[in-house]
């Protein structure tokens, strides 16, 4: 069992590294294949002397062959050096570290909302067929369909402009202030995902509700609340956890739009800024970050599955 776990982990880590390598190559080439000359962007259209152009070209190794450039970048990255932002002339690692807490807070906040609202709605609609179920289905359909930029704009126009209950921009200082500042962005971010989670929770619950062992538990005089907790919700956790896992990375990407809407200086707006300014080292670093988060979260989800369902064995080997 432990040997299996070890082999499984080893395999997954090797896979993770390979995927990261492949992704880094794709990202690196994509940025380089995009039209436009980085140096021109760097100078923001200002005239430039041939000598200065040459200096910049040399500084970013733009004169080297493509594969060599990639190799140089990769060896730096492997040593933890993501290079310098062209835009801000700052170390990218430092930049990310500065902005990560704010975006992390936003994503965490949104995640809490998604879990609480999504699972509650899902459970309620599974347990109350009829009117309540239809109401929840209607609402989740609506919230899934609403894109986060639209939700953000609508929320801002009502609660910031009309009512003035929440600040319209910035990330705030200190925990309470930050909570206050990030409430609307977190709601905008959570809407779609909470709707999705509610749907998944509902169908997983309905699936489990129809199982005979649930009836058996009832037939033994186990109180209904306990039946729901220990036999229905408990058994429905598999799909729920899987979906939550895929949401984490998507949330990180979705912050790009929401942070832009609410002028929050986090990773998301940094990504958008970097793309528009063709700040390619930053784009590369952030893309890799998202991919890495996705892979790590999925690894965690896979490790959780056997704890949820003992019939699942890691690596899917024979029993």
């Amino acid at each position, binding site marked *: 069992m432990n040997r299996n776990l070890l082999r499984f982990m080893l395999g997954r880590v090797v896979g993770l590294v390979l995927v990261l390598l492949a992704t880094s190559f794709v990202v690196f080439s994509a940025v380089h294949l995009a039209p436009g000359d980085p140096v021109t962007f760097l100078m923001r259209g200002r005239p430039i002397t041939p000598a200065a152009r040459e200096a910049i070209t040399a500084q970013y190794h733009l004169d080297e062959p493509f594969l060599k450039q990639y190799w140089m970048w990769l060896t730096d990255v492997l040593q933890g050096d993501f290079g310098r932002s062209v835009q801000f002339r700052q170390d990218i690692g430092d930049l990310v570290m500065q902005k990560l807490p704010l975006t992390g807070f936003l994503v965490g906040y949104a995640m809490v909302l998604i879990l609480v609202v999504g699972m509650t709605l899902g459970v309620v609609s599974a347990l109350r067929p009829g009117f309540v179920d239809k109401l929840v289905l209607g609402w989740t359909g609506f919230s899934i369909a609403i894109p986060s930029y639209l939700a953000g704009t609508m929320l801002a126009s009502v609660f910031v402009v009309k009512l003035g209950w929440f600040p319209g921009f910035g990330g705030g200082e200190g925990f309470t202030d930050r909570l206050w500042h990030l409430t609307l962005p977190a709601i905008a971010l959570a809407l779609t995902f909470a709707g999705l989670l509610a749907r998944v929770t509902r169908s997983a619950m309905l699936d489990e509700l129809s*199982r*005979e*062992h649930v*009836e*058996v*538990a*009832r*037939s*033994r*005089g*186990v*109180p209904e609340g*306990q039946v729901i907790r*220990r*036999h229905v919700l*408990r*058994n429905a956790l598999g799909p729920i956890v899987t979906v939550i896992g895929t949401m984490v990375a998507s949330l990180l990407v979705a912050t790009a739009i929401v942070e832009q809407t609410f002028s929050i200086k986090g990773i998301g707006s940094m990504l958008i800024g970097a793309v528009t300014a063709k700040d390619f080292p930053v784009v590369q670093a952030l893309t890799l970050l998202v991919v890495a988060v996705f892979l790590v979260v999925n690894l965690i989800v896979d490790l959780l599955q056997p704890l*949820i*369902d*003992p*019939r699942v064995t890691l690596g899917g080997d024979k029993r």
Partner: protein
Amino acid sequence: MAETTTSTDMSKGKNKSTAASSPAAGPGGSAEPLLDIQGLTLRLPASAAARPILDGIGLHVGRGETVGLVGESGSGKSVACRSVLGLLPRTAETEGAVRVNGTDVLGLDKQGLRDMRRNKVAMVFQDPRASVNPMRRVGAFLTEGLRVRGLSKADALARAEQLLEEVGIRDPKGALRKFPHQFSGGMLQRVVIAAALTGDPELLLADEPTTALDVTTQAEVVGILQRLQARHGTGMLFVTHDLELAAAICDRIYVMYAGRIVESQPAADLFARPRHPYTAGLLASTPRLDPDAEPPKPIPGRPVSLAEAPTGCAFADRCAFAEDRCRAEAPPLVTQGAVSVACLRADEGILP
């Protein structure tokens, strides 16, 4: 309690009491049977079923008695069995009474129902794989029933171990730590039976407890059930489609067809001399080992579906002896001595 609250129910007519709800205190039946179902009718909304799932069925089980409930799939035997625990579809409407020790289950509130399920009536379901939550340990499954009765965790574990030993599980302590998928079907059904015994039930409902098992395991499981029943003096309602099995272990047998009881007799008599053409058909369709036996003859046609509501006898379309009046008039269940049969031609000697 409440010996005669309703008028017709208690008419102890020995001869030709034509009420479907005849209690007909059978041989060995005490004044008040352990389980007494009278005139139980269960309807689903018209969109789901054209005829009642159960149509005025009556049966009783005495203390320590084993009673068989036999019929094809869809005859309503499982629903009848579940109704004793108050496990009915949400949309079902019921009439009649299901009395356990004199208390009508259909009239119980949530608390009363829980109390009855914990302490008086237990059920063993068909498929042990489906009956036990696959994600929790066997120990959790067994102790759950004990914990809801107020036992401490340690006491519950000790008792669970004892119960596993009683149903013949080797290394009961280790078994408590295992997950259901680590057991074979037969072993898991023993666990389920052990779980059913947690509340020292007076009445055990067994809904095809051996159908999902292979033949050798079937015999073992039946043996365990019988042994435990004898030791604890439990009354048992044994639901099965296997008439021979029922005849082997039951004192009395009820035969169901399309939501009605069509015949009931002491097991040996039913087997030797069926009175209803359907029972005879069931017996003739069972393969025999005896070399002189005739080859099995299946009953022609198919069971009545829930979408059909035939007038008259529901079995008429499949019956070799059916006459015009069988299709016009529903036969009442007529009781003569220990025999009840619902067939208009039962007294005409149509069956050998």
